[in-house]
């Protein structure tokens, strides 16, 4: 194992993810249309119902569709993370995950490559969405389109690591529908993606507490602040911490000496 070998393997994994992504145009379209429906339909309805007070990082009153853009970027990455997870469970059942795992490289490295490649794809989707939103008149400061990049990398890695962890824990493809109900929807709705948390506190202190502990809230806030050239250290720290936790657990889950792969039906 050499540095050159590691680099070549990473290039190979990234190329495969990119090729697969390009081949699946429906997936790209779905990834784009889903947040656009929120932006153009839901936001129009909610706009009347919700007033947004001036809260950081915003400096003026903002229309609702501006508020939800970072949340929708988070949603794109959340879906992408779960989609990778689904394809890994599928690959494990079908076998192509094995091809990866029997490569003569440390397993944590192979998983990290897979995660990075998935994050790369999610960032492409996020920028495509930002471009379309811009076209519909939902704009961020120009510089924000650059400063949001590191935030998207971090949130993409965190949500991708969550997907990796889930893929190591899910036995069969059939169980995947449960993920939709018990992970994606609660994570999305119980966060600051759709409404600011102070609004949530007004209606239910309990829900507010749950939202505050949701790592997705912090991923969204990291993106929100970065999109306005601002920095939210608390949100970044929690997103980073969640990333480290999810990735460590996922590596344990794929460890040959323990975890999922051992059980009958797995691997």
């Amino acid at each position, binding site marked *: 194992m050499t540095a050159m070998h590691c680099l070549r393997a990473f290039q190979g*994994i990234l190329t495969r993810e990119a090729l697969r992504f390009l081949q699946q145009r429906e997936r790209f379209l779905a990834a784009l249309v889903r947040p656009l429906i929120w932006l153009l339909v839901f936001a129009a309805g909610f706009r009347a119902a919700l007033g947004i007070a001036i809260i950081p990082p915003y400096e003026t009153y903002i229309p609702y569709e501006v508020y939800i853009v970072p949340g929708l970027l988070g949603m794109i990455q959340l879906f992408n993370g779960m989609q990778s997870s689904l394809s890994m469970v599928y690959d494990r059942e079908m076998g192509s995950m094995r091809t990866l795992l029997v490569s*003569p490289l440390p397993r944590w490295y192979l998983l990290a490559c897979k995660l990075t490649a998935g994050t790369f794809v999610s960032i492409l989707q996020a920028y495509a969405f930002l471009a379309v939103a811009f076209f519909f008149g939902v704009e961020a400061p120009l510089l924000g389109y650059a400063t949001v990049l590191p935030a998207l990398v971090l949130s993409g890695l965190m949500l991708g690591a969550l997907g990796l962890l889930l893929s190591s824990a899910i036995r069969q493809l059939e169980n995947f529908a449960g993920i939709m109900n018990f992970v994606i929807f609660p994570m999305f709705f119980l966060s600051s993606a759709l409404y600011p948390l102070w609004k949530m506190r007004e209606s239910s202190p309990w829900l507010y507490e749950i939202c505050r502990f949701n790592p997705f809230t912090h991923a969204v806030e990291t993106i929100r602040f970065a999109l306005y050239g601002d920095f939210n250290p608390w949100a970044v720290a929690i997103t980073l911490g969640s990333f480290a936790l999810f990735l460590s657990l996922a590596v344990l889950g794929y460890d040959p000496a323990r975890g999922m792969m051992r*059980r009958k039906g797995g691997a």
Partner: protein
Amino acid sequence: MSAPKSETRNAAALNVEGVRFHYGAKPALQDVAFTIPVGTFTVLLGPNGAGKTTLFSLIARLYHATHGTIAVAGHDLRRAPLSALTEMGIVFQQPTLDLDLSVLQNLRYHAALRGMGKKDALERIDAELRRFDMFERKHEKVRTLNGGHRRRVEIARALLHRPRLLLLDEPTIGLDVPTRKAIVDHVHNLCKTDGIAVLWATHLIDEIAPSDRLVLLDAGRVRAKGAIADILQMAGTATIGEAFTKLTAKESAA
């Protein structure tokens, strides 16, 4: 490829010793031990559920054995897993190609995982595809290939990095008789021409050639192992089919 160390040069292609494995409380493999000498074709014969796929997963290091040691070309799977994996080419029972990518894209992905440079990879891909008569289909999507062709691509892929041990887990499953025969013959030739050691798992007795070595696995235990002639003599039967019935029946009656 650097020259192998002298200690590993003389080592068996595969050495399995005292391997045990449980799925929960249910034992899947018990004290499995056998050796595959360099350049031989060894058939791992056993009925469905004998533990062949479990044994393959352990040798491929998808997970560790509960007890025992496995060494590939002298490299212990636990102490030097990366060296051991480098020496191995694996064809799993389920197809593992990306259907929407071309044959070339699939093979280049594998070459990258094995750390091969672009030039070396392209040369090896061409050479192996020619050998398996698949060169003309290099740019076709795998989805458009039939089962036999997909298998050939998978075997070609497993050979790209010049492994010393080739593992195949029931590679002819779902193929028609002529295709099966062609693939069986092809892999037998590999042993002769390239000196590769092969472990071929199957439950089909007609895939065995008279010169092969055999490991007979039943209910997680090795019932017999060695050259075909020796096993026939030991069992006192004329054919492997009879030997198989006799050796597995004796144990289940005991």
